[in-house]
């Protein structure tokens, strides 16, 4: 029985067709190791990790191949053992169709682990936990891929009373969290308890949408087992009403606790922290087993014969996964994520990354092209549907007119891009596309502003420095001139002075004595090549000496008597 818990509501939301059953019929399968793994270095929010391996190098499963760079960045690891055959630009699972640095590994089939073991976080300092989790590459697996170590910082997050575990999984087609909870509930719970202990949170609330009764039952059984085994009673499994987007962090927190996190604040300011269930599983693996994040559960669904969930090594091409499910012949697109928020992939060769919760195969029959965009009729349906309590129509007008300042004033950045507004829009306006456009324009402008401010500062400093150098130079010249004048004056007075001080006399005497010593030493030394000579040699030396004397005489400047 579900624990009794007072539930709250968020405004808006929609009820799209869920289409989740098909992929939950079969248990999680382990996807075979592909012939080539392409592991992008940049798989989380924040700085791009720097590559730690070179082509030709042999790597082991779980070996770090990309080191976190900067304060917000997370490591990446080799998903299996093998040989690095390239570190190069490869097509990324990104809408842009652009490439980024990837480590390409040819698996050797041995799947040999790097030595690893549990991490004793209870006796580790916060810094050690921070570094360990950063180097384990654990990031939020709900889709935002925010590095988890930044959220598991007990020093920053005091007075945390609720840890929310997000198992709502509201997006259509995606079932990876559902099957993970059904099959590995106990592990998820262990991970949640580890996180609770790290944060010192009072209770753990596991929010699951009520369209997943099997997952709720499994999690409750696990919670009950923990309760009977160790008397742990702080974990509550809560069934929440099915309403898209109940799985948004702010929405789920609101449903479970009634706390509405306002603009510009974080949930931790109100004592709540939220993690995805997949993240809890990854945390358990990293802490209790010492295994970094090298695989994840991925739903393959949509236009395929047998939709299913797979445990996939990161870096596996999406094409290989789709092939396992028998894609239908009219498939023409691959979407990473679900139909509401997913991103269309440039092609099916892109690898599975930490953010890939679902590989959705599409066709024009399954997802027909949207009808033509019509003018906004000011009906206000979008505002009714918005779960973030924004006014989507205002944002749309400002984004469309490129009045970005106004869009920001209307809290564009509180938009979670859930797509509810576009879903209900009777004019079929792709509202989220406009918001994404406006957001990326604003980011680009802010970056440009930062760099131009820096350039101004550097230019002004250079001007200041040049001015200072000029002054220093002038001052030096002036000082030199003064010194020269003083020297000249001093020389004159010296010449005038006849009497010397006793000190100077003493010095002179010392110098004279030293010179005398040197002269005496020189005289004592006899050149050794002039002793024990035969009479012939003596005669020869004498002859040479006379010649030298003559030459010296000749070389002397002549003194003309006539002058």
């Amino acid at each position, binding site marked *: 029985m579900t624990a009794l818990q007072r539930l709250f509501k968020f405004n808006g939301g929609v009820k799209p067709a869920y289409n989740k059953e098909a992929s939950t019929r079969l248990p999680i399968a382990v996807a075979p190791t592909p012939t080539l793994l392409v592991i992008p270095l940049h798989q989380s929010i924040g700085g791009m990790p720097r590559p730690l391996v070179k082509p030709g190098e042999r790597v082991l499963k779980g070996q770090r191949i990309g080191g976190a760079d900067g304060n917000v960045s997370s490591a990446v690891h080799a998903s299996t053992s093998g040989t690095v055959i390239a570190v190069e630009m490869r097509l990324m699972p*990104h809408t842009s169709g652009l490439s980024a640095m990837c480590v390409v590994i040819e698996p050797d089939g041995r799947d040999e682990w790097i030595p690893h073991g549990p991490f004793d976080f209870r006796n580790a300092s916060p810094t050690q936990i921070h570094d360990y989790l950063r180097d384990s590459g654990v990031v939020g697996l709900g889709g935002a891929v925010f590095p988890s170590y930044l959220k598991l910082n007990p020093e920053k997050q005091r007075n945390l009373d609720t840890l929310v575990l997000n198992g709502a999984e509201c997006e259509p087609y995606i079932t990876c969290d559902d099957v993970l909870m059904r099959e590995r509930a106990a592990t998820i719970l262990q991970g949640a308890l580890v996180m609770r202990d790290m944060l010192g949170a009072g209770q753990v609330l596991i929010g699951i949408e009520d369209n997943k009764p099997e997952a709720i039952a499994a999690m409750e059984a696990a919670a009950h087992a923990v309760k009977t085994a160790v008397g742990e009673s702080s974990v509550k499994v809560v069934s929440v009403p099915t309403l898209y987007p109940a799985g948004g962090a702010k929405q789920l927190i609101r449903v479970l606790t009634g706390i509405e996190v306002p603009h510009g604040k974080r949930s931790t300011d109100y004592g709540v922290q939220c993690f995805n269930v997949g993240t809890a599983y990854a945390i358990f693996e990293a802490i209790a087993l010492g295994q970094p994040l090298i695989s994840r559960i991925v739903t393959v669904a949509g236009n395929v014969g047998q939709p299913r969930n797979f445990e996939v090594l990161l870096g596996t091409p999406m094409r290989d996964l789709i092939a396992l499910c028998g894609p239908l012949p009219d498939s023409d697109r691959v979407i990473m994520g679900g139909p509401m928020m997913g991103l269309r992939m440039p092609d099916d060769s892109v690898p599975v990354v930490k953010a890939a919760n679902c590989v959705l195969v599409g066709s024009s029959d399954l997802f027909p092209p949207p009808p*033509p*965009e019509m003018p906004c009729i000011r009906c206000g349906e979008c505002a009714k549907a918005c779960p973030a309590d924004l006014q989507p129509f205002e944002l749309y007008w400002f984004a469309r007119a490129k009045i970005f300042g106004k869009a920001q004033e209307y809290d564009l950045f509180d938009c979670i891009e859930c797509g509810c507004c576009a879903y209900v829009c009777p004019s079929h306006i*792709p509202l989220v596309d406009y918001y994404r456009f406006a957001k990326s324009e604003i980011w680009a402008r802010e970056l440009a502003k930062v*760099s131009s401010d820096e350039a*101004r500062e550097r*230019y002004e400093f*250079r*001007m200041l420095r040049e001015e200072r150098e000029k002054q220093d130079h002038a001052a030096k010249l002036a000082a030199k001139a003064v010194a020269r004048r003083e020297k000249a004056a001093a020389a004159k007075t010296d010449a005038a002075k006849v009497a010397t001080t006793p000190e100077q006399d003493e010095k002179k005497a010392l110098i004279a004595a030293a010179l005398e010593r040197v002269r005496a030493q020189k005289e004592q030394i006899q050149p050794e090549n002039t002793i024990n000579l035969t009479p012939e040699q003596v005669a020869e030396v004498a002859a040479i000496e006379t010649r030298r004397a003559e030459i010296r005489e000749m070389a002397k400047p002549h003194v003309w008597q006539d002058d």
Partner: protein
Amino acid sequence: MLAALLVMALGAVVLGAALGYAAVRFRVEGDPLVEKIDAILPQTQCGQCSYPGCRPYATAIAKGEAEINQCPPGGDEGIRKLADLLGREFKSLSAEHGIEKPKSVAVIDEQICIGCTLCIQACPVDAIVGASKQLHTVIARQCTGCELCLPPCPVDCISMQAIRESVENWKWKYPVFKINPAQREAA
């Protein structure tokens, strides 16, 4: 009559003193208009506007000595912002000052560089590192793309490279709905 005159005179003196005090106490340092114009300019410090830097150009605009369309790196958008700020009419970029180019950074060919330091002296934002007879290199993040290092280089080893689009700086495009001719016929 005299009382009225005295009252008025006293009033004038008191108010004058108050105004005089306020002028000293609340004096505005510098010219706020110059600051505002300078904030809009792109800070490349390239001198294409015929002034020795962005700030001198901003000062000239504020004094009314310069037109607002002399800054090629700022482009049309910059001119529009200046026009909005100053209440002037928008003018397209003046051709004699150059054309708007994609943002680029200077790159030194390390095989050719002789370490003469001339480019270091030319860089307005100190974005080139090196020493005499040592290899020079450009700090790409701080290069404004002003091209001032190109002319002094005696061996022409500096080239400008446009900043390529990457996953990090990629921007979502403005939504454009493609009209499908087949759909129109059907409709």
